């Protein structure tokens, strides 16, 4: 379980995460939604030990993130961030190999190679393994990074807006993939999403944030409510039932 207890983070005088207590890491997918600047990415950075909270504690499986050893945490929790700019020219295989660093410290064993192969297979990247990252399309690149996270073989996987800059087909592909990872591999996935309809379709639970606070935390169907969503985004949202599923309309 990933547990945040009364966590507060300020940038200067601006409070971006405001006394948040939250537990996630149960089975399935948790979608984290909310307007820009709600504190979603900051929350991820606090869990991924890129930032230190000004107050409160974050723990992963009982390990306090502030004091636990970084390599140990890296075998329990993988974080895929929003922008993944790589300075050097890496191939897909090189990248996926990095996922094994927490386990092997760079000296690959048979077990490591096995994990790398399985991750590449799972993401259907076999044909691209020798390609350089800058020769891939956006969708393939994103899959390569998810393969790295998968090779890291952690129980918890945090993804910050993995659908950014992808087209309809690739967004759906990535979400189906996350669903499969949760169902088949028992990954505990937390994903930041901007398209609430994807959240409603693929997530089991939705956590909505606004101005640094959690304003809704419930099964996906319950959060898909016009009143709730309007409060989260501060903009009119209609929710209709189409083919038995709630669909939010916010385009006009």
């Amino acid at each position, binding site marked *: 379980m990933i547990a945040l207890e009364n966590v507060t983070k300020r940038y200067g005088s601006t409070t971006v995460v405001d006394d948040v207590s939250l537990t996630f890491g149960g089975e399935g997918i948790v979608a984290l939604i909310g307007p820009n600047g709600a504190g979603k990415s900051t929350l991820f950075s606090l869990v*991924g030990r890129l930032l230190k909270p000004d107050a409160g504690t974050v723990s992963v499986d009982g390990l306090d993130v502030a004091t636990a050893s970084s*390599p140990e945490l*890296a075998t329990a929790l993988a974080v895929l961030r929003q922008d993944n700019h790589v300075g050097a020219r890496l191939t897909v295989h090189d990248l996926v190999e990095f996922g094994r660093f927490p386990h092997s410290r*760079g000296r*690959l064993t048979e077990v490591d190679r096995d994990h790398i192969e399985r991750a590449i297979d799972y993401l259907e990247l076999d044909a691209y393994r*020798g390609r350089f990252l800058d020769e891939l399309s956006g969708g393939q690149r994103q899959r390569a990074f998810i393969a790295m996270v998968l090779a*890291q073989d952690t129980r918890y996987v945090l993804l910050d807006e993995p659908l950014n800059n992808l087209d309809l087909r690739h967004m759906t592909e990535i979400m189906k993939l996350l669903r499969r990872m949760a169902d088949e591999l028992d990954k505990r996935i937390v994903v930041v999403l901007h398209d609430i309809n994807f959240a409603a379709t693929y997530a089991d639970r939705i956590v909505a944030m606004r101005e640094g606070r959690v304003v809704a935390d419930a099964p996906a169907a319950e959060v898909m409510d016009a009143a709730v969503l309007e409060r989260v985004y501060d903009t009119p949202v209609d929710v209709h039932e189409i083919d038995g599923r709630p669909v939010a309309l916010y385009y006009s």
Partner: protein
Amino acid sequence: MPTDTFEVGAPEIPAPLRRGRGLRELWSQPWVRLTVLAAVIAVAVGIYLFTDVPGSLAFALRIRGLTVAAMLVVATAVGVSTVVFHTITANRILTPSIMGFDAFYVLISTIIVFFLGSQSFLTFDPLTLWLVQVGVMMTFSSALFTWLFGGRRRSVHLMLLVGIVLGVFFRSFAEWMQRMLDPLDFQVLSDAMFASLTRPDELLLTLTGALVVAGAIATVPLLRTLDVLTLGAPAAIGLGVEHRRVVLALFTIVSLMVAASTALVGPILFFGLIVANLAYSYAGSFRHAWTLPCAVGIGMLCLIGGQLVLEQVFGYGGTLSTIIEFAGGLFFLYLVLRKGAR
């Protein structure tokens, strides 16, 4: 061979197999490229040692051997420090000179000439001078580092920015003092401002060599961590790299190597940028186990080649840095433009 400093194991995964057979495939292997580089260096060193011997061969070998040793030390310091610096700062257009090492060297020398005169500068005990230079440069860089990276702020960029500003300040301050020197003193000082690899002091060369070799050895266990750092600090932290500790260790190694070699031969970082970038395109792998020895080798080739050109073509009518910067710069431009055209 300069590359012997590094214990390079076989690559974990063979370089991506490309189409093309025989020589081309062989050439895509980093170890082949490194071997070729080492062979070229060996030939250049041979030419330098054995041609144009005016008198006793043994005497010439002794004197020239010292120069070759100094070149090795400098090439290792420059190659390793620049590549490591690039990886830490996630930037390939900087060199550690941005932290003001060269500026400090110039300033300290200027202060000595300014207050004590060129006579005492020339007769100054070289060991004391070296110790003072290394001490001051190390103190400055560690102060800058702990101030701007060790605290809560932890920003590499802020540290670089402050480093640049202070570097410019020290340089201007030194220039201001130089303007008030008498012409003879100024002449002596100007000579000291160009890196000179010939006839190094044996004791200082041994000391510097020991520090640089120690630094290179200390880098070996960190090679794979350096690879992970190319993904950027956030991703590296996510993969369990203890970023602050590792960067502190690497930065200390870089500072020590650069400070010691600068104090030995004068400002040397000028060709780090060319050497490192040539190494990235030559090595054929992003892995530091290959890019680092390649950078050292290319640095050595620049130094020995430049020295040969200086002696054979220009008859000592110039400085080594001019030749390396001119030829290396042109070659570097060619590489960049050729890549852009593709």
